């Protein structure tokens, strides 16, 4: 049973990781917590759902629709909620509060449009089961794993081998020097938001496909867990977010399996506190680059 639980944890963890990567990207570049990122994840799920319902898209196209929908919303959030407040001054709190507001607005709008109930995702993926003897996986779980792996590898390539990726890394190291050196910082921030939100959208569609339950409130949970993950992994580190997501997913599943589900959140956040005590900069945090 332990291996099966481990597999369950890895599946859950990869969806967490995808959402958390976006969080940490935005934090890395802007040094700001995007507290509406969970809602972007939720909107991605709904965008994918609409694509599946209206145009009868299969899972792959629903993923693309979800990523696109989330990316558009993410960019809009940057332009409407982040940028004007950033320009005003050096307050670190005001942009974060602004995102809290955006998150609430998005939640309420989606509730008005779709109702507050959980909605089922139409998909044909789930029913194939592959039995490996000591554990079994479903078709949709393999799909999740595959998509998450491909997304993370693609992101890694983007960040290390493309000019935009390099510009993003430069901006996250020191935004002022990057601007002086000729990088169009505003454009890079937009690209960061787009990429981060697209990943969250993909995660949203994956969660919808696998767990067959989408609701306007699913983003809230993911937002909080995302914060825990980026702290565990190290603020600003993409690989930290990936590792942190997997660790959190496995920890949650194992605590439910061997203890009781009431311990699940206690475990997850207890882990975060523990890691903060032992290694305050997080698992992959560099300790530099956070000073400005």
């Amino acid at each position: 049973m332990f291996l099966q639980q481990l597999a369950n944890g890895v599946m859950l963890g990869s969806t967490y990781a995808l959402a958390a990567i976006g969080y940490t990207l935005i934090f890395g570049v802007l040094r700001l917590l995007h507290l509406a990122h969970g809602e972007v994840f939720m909107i991605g799920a709904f965008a994918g759902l609409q694509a599946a319902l209206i145009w009868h898209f299969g899972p792959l196209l629903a993923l693309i629709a979800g990523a696109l929908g989330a990316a558009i919303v993410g960019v809009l959030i940057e332009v409407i909620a982040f940028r004007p407040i950033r320009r005003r001054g050096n307050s670190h709190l005001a942009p974060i509060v602004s995102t809290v507001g955006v998150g609430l607005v998005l939640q309420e709008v989606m509730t008005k449009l779709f109702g507050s109930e959980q909605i089922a995702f139409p998909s044909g993926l789930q029913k194939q089961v592959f039995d490996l003897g000591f554990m079994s996986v479903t078709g949709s779980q393999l799909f999740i794993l595959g998509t998450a792996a491909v997304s993370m590898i693609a992101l890694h390539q983007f960040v290390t081998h493309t000019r935009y990726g390099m510009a993003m890394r430069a901006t996250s190291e020191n935004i002022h020097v990057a601007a002086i050196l000729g990088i169009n910082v505003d454009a890079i921030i937009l690209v960061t938001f787009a990429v981060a939100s697209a990943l969250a959208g993909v995660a949203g569609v994956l969660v919808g496909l696998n767990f067959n339950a989408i609701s306007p409130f699913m983003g809230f949970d993911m937002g909080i867990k995302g914060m825990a993950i980026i702290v565990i992994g190290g603020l600003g580190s993409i690989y930290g977010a990936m590792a942190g997501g997997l660790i959190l997913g496995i920890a949650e599943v194992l605590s439910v399996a061997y203890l009781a589900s009431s311990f699940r959140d206690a475990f997850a956040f207890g882990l975060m506190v523990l890691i903060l005590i032992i290694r305050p900069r997080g698992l992959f945090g560099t300790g530099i680059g956070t000073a400005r």
Partner: protein
Amino acid sequence: MPLYPMLGRSVVLALAITGSSVGAATADVTIGVLTPLSGKGASYGQQQKNAIAMFLEKYGDIGGPAGKLQLVTYDTRGDNAEAINLTRKLIDSDQVLAIIGPQFSGEAEVSFPLAVRGQTPIITPMAAKAGITAANRPWAFRFALTTEKVYGPLLDAWLKKQAASKPIKDVVIFVDLKDAVSNYDAKTVFPPLLKERGIKVADTISFQTGDIDFSAQVTRAKSLEPDGVIVSSLFSEAAHVVDEMRKQGMNQPVVGAIGINHPRFITVGGTATEGVFAASDFFSENPKPEVAEWAAEFVKRFGDRPSNAAGEIYDTLYLMRECIKSTGVTGNNVKEDRVKLRDCWAGLKDAEAPLTGATSMDKNGDGTRIPTVLEVKDGKFTVVQ
């Protein structure tokens, strides 16, 4: 006595008399309704809203001195704190004669004491956790059956069916810790009933309302290899648990607690719900003509099959109207009218309601009637013979 105070008093008296007679001409009987229209349990709340609309159209006019039935409906969002505030509001500022609701056992537990303090009869159409009415006598009532009245016949019917193929010796209970009645059932109601029938509980595995990932819990249950499974939760989580069970290859027979009595259990769970046993006093596929007609109209108007929530609030409203008629309350004297309604409810015996049949109130204020054991067959709840 000096003239002016006497005059003053007479004027006040005259105004009071005319005021109350004006009141008698236009007073309507006001009943408060608490239902979760959004948030947790919005499914149940929306169905109740539709049932209320149907009821008012057919029975809104009470006739006689009572006039028309006025309902003041508030949305509790399934939240206990909100239920408290709204109960207070209904009693103190809206001056209702009685309250129908709240929906959930958790909400009822916190609202009932307020109704006792406010001396207002309060009847929950659906909260099923045992003991909450007994703790709040004489003002609190419950239309639904308490769960121990339901699960005895349910388990017997289920075991009888399984005995033919593979007798049940042990079960795993899945429980939603966050839902008051599901939690109570799994910990307090089911175990003694199971023990009476010689069945062991191999494990009680928990989750919470709103969870979407049940892989850990189901894997753990699977490793215990029980003969049967009991799911004590609301319909959405139950549907996902059953779905996850079938995905992981657990084919054991399943019994659901009362939380699954909702047509969306089958819509969300799909083919995984085939063969699940449940028990209810109202179900939309009931072939009885009154119920079938009512259900057909509900589907036509709202596009959704009615659940327990809709049927029970409709009948609760019906019995409330019967009480208003029989006691002749008019809304003029709120305090007295509340007492009259309370006594009417306490004395209900074999009162006929259109959808659930004859109801009596027992000495605890709990409804008694005969539940029907149901099985999911071909995507519908069907009666087990």
